[in-house]
């Protein structure tokens, strides 16, 4: 869907991005991550030509992005940023309708799409459609920002630290919403974050950048289990690498049938291995009963299994 080929961007003599090669498949949710100044935001902006690259090329649907009409290219890529940038003089509905209107959709179709998106992002259309951005909370504004980016059903969604300015509770809610949207629509999403936990939670692949160079690409688990070098290890947080790995594993993977005396404490099967270990440490036990969504006991997990078998 998006392919960086030897892409470079220079500011003066300094390379913001140097020789980046990256192939993003349709339906992937790729997180660009790295320390400040690593070029992750620049890489994202090169895709919709908010930043023009100096060397190499970027392909969008197997075609060089410079061969598209600039406005046309941007209208085919949804874009959401940390500061949201809603149009203050336009209502929520009008904001969301921006790109469909630019594309000349009929009014009925625009209205239906706005309603659909507001429902998808859990904002009551009757209540919020006519409001102005300054009448919304930060989280609501970002929901509108995401809805606006999705409005014209773009092929690609670009997000530049979209949840960076939100409080933890609101951020978690929006992360869940994004994950649900990704699952429901299968959109290709490229998003920049400096929050490692956000990347581990959402991404199907993580791209780690440093000083404008690609350091490692892989699934969250691959990065945690096989850091390519010391920088990756440091960046991922060496001290709790193991816990982070456990947090990517559902407890269901370690399930064993009940045997012997039933453990005293209970954990839902949707919990992560990390939560299971935490619960054991808190209760001073070494095994837990596991319950499914209906509350039926479906087996047990034990500490040695969780700690021994990380490589599933």
């Amino acid at each position, binding site marked *: 869907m998006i392919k960086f080929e030897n892409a470079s961007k220079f500011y003066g003599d300094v390379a913001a991005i140097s020789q980046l090669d990256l192939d993003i498949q349709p339906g992937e949710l790729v997180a660009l991550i790295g320390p400040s100044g690593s070029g992750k935001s620049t890489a994202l902006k090169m895709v*919709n030509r*908010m930043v023009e690259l100096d060397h190499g090329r970027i392909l969008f649907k197997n075609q060089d992005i410079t061969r598209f009409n*600039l*406005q*046309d*290219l*941007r*209208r085919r890529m949804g*874009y959401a*940023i940390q*500061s*949201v*940038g*809603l*149009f*203050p*003089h336009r209502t929520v509905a009008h904001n969301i309708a*921006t*790109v469909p209107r*630019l594309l000349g959709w009929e009014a009925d179709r625009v209205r239906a799409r706005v309603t659909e998106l507001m429902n998808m992002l859990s904002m009551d259309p009757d209540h919020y459609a*006519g409001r*102005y951005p300054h009448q919304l909370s930060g989280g609501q504004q970002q929901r509108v*920002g995401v809805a*606006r980016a999705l409005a014209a059903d773009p092929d690609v969604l*670009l997000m530049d630290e979209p949840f960076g300015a939100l409080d933890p509770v609101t951020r978690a809610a929006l992360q869940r919403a994004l994950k649900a949207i990704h699952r429901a629509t299968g959109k290709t999403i490229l998003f920049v974050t400096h929050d490692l936990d956000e990347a581990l939670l959402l991404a199907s692949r993580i791209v780690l950048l440093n000083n404008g160079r690609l350091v490692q690409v892989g699934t969250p688990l691959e990065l945690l289990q096989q850091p390519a070098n010391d920088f990756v290890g440091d960046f991922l947080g060496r001290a709790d690498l193991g816990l982070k790995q456990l947090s990517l594993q559902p407890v269901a993977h370690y399930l064993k049938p009940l045997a012997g005396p039933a453990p005293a404490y209970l954990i839902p099967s949707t919990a992560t291995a990390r939560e299971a270990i935490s619960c054991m440490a808190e209760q001073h036990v070494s095994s837990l009963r596991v319950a499914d969504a209906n509350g039926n006991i479906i087996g047990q997990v034990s500490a040695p299994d969780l700690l021994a078998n990380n490589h599933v």
Partner: protein
Amino acid sequence: MASPDTQRWNPVLALYVAVALVASMGLPFVRVAPNRLLSGDPIFLGDVLQRQGSPLVVALVLAVFTLLVLAIGQPQRRFTQALVSVAMAASLAGLWLLASHVSSSVSPVDHPLQRTALGAGFWTLAALAWLTALDAVARLNLATLPRLIVHIAGCLPLLLSLSEGQNLSLAKEYANHSDVVGPAVVRHLQIVMLAVVPAVVIGVPLAWRMSRSAMLRQGLFPLLNLIQTIPAIALFGLLMAPLAWLAVQLPMLGSAGIRGVGMAPAVLALFLYSLLPIVRAALAGLEQVPAETILAARAMGMSPWQIFWQIELPLELPVLLIGVRTALVQTIGLAAVCALIGAGGLGQIMFDGLFSAANELVILGVMPIVLLAMLADSFFQILETMLKTPAP
């Protein structure tokens, strides 16, 4: 200065009342002259009340005076301030009626050339009544629209009583010049519009270009500032020579009315004067459009034209309108000077009066200018209020 919230008394009103007392005793209310060229004998307000005032009029004058003295000590009471507003609107009409009464009492049949001119006392009292009314209305703390309605209502008594004063010199001047006042107003507005409309049409895109180029900004602002400091007469002089030369070189322009004198240099000069306030306001307006809003608009795939038309212009409009208002009011006043280079307009009447030492004629030219400026100002105030409250 104490804020109006904490004021125990109204020093402004006290000053007005004191000045009014001095003016009514020390300055002639009207002057009666055998013809328009002589300055005539002064008649003071006291004489007028003594000779012609019925007890009712005297009682009314005393009542208004008492009310004003009371109002000095009650700057916060809205009821008192409302009473003062009404009293001042009535007083404006009353002063006019009193003056016309004097003029009618001298038989116009016996002395057809005799003139009753409004004196310094009348003008001072009228101005003070008007200022007091403005002060009182401001203390009512009304929103823009109701305030403007009150202002208009306040003018009604005077407007209704205008026809009573036909024997006054001012009315006679109007009668003598009635055929030129109408066209002069039209010409005046023509000059103003020909200057301000192009200044908006050119100034707004110019400011947009300047907002994107520091070089253009640094180059143009000193120039616009410089133009603003050139006195109008000097600017006319500077424009005359090149325009006259152009007219000679290109006879087509000359036949279209572009000459060294007349409308062309006047309109051009006023256009240049309008440019600074409009460009400055437009630029200030553009600067307060959030950067991330523009960034988002670009990333959504809006063209630069769409960004300007759909995002920047609506967002800069409230600030831009303040600049247009400034330019418009300034130009309405400045356009009077254009009569000096043969552009006509209300300034023509004013200068005719000045050169023939006929004060009433000067006033006849100046009054419509003041009224036009006030109307333009009010119109834009309404527009700005409407823009500030978007439909919920």
